């Protein structure tokens, strides 16, 4: 366990900025273990960018890097993301 680990709630503002809607209740399915769960419950690590990991198998779900008004998203670890518009 990493004391610096956060969860999806901590990046709700960033995700809302990127996607334009509330995202912690969106449901993502892990491409590693196939478990589906709310974005609010994923494990989050912050460094130069933000890394989202599956709380069940630790697979990297997504990486987010934001610099000024530009955002890079890498989401190959997510099979699907179900968003309520």
């Amino acid at each position, binding site marked *: 366990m990493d*004391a610096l680990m956060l969860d999806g709630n901590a990046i709700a*503002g960033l995700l809302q900025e990127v996607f334009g809607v509330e995202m912690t209740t969106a449901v993502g399915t892990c491409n590693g273990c196939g478990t589906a769960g709310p974005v*609010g*419950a994923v494990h989050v690590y912050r460094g130069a960018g933000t890394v989202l990991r599956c709380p069940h198998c630790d697979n990297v779900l997504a990486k987010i890097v934001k610099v000024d008004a530009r955002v890079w998203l890498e989401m190959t670890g997510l099979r699907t993301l179900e968003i309520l518009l």
Partner: protein
Amino acid sequence: METLAFDVPAWPGHRAGQHVDVRLTAEDGYRAERSYSIASAPDDTRVELTIERLEDGEVSPYLTDELRPGDAIELRGPIGGYFVWEPSQGGPLLLVAGGSGVVPLMAMIRVRAAAGSDADTRLLFSSRSWDDVIYRDELERLQNGHLTVVHTLTRSQPPDWKGYARRVDAEMLAEVAPSQAVQPAVYVCGPTPFVEAVAAALVGLGHEPARIKTERFGATGG
């Protein structure tokens, strides 16, 4: 700990458990942003934040020491929809707080009281000492037959203390929490190691992981 009240024009209202992002911009354009849980129940355009001053923080010392009544700051929110509770969800409700992790849970307790809800609610609140207990008097006042507040004091206790005096563990949770058989909604908020230990103990007691919502503070410089 300091509680700051902001009047936010056109505030759309919020749900208990949501937070705001506070953004500070220096004269040279440098920006620092931090998330703070909303402490108050929804009340028109008023938003209260309870902020823990972190000695080496970039944002919290400014908010607690420099900000004066009448100053304006940049707030974004309300944010979040996962770690929220509304009186219409009913109970039973188990809230487990570590230190300043009580803030979003206090918003739930306040909105519950404002709505006149009698949902069975138990707050297990871990603090270092009696003097460190945030919202202590208000929690004492709000306690009634349907709201139980149980403290554990981990570092020092008053001389006549008869309550818990250790970190939250499975035995304590078994004594305080509603049985998993009645399927309480559980909200756990605090530093990451606290949240991990509490969530693991609750799952060990048979509580459904999907009913345990967690919010971790981590160790980020506020």
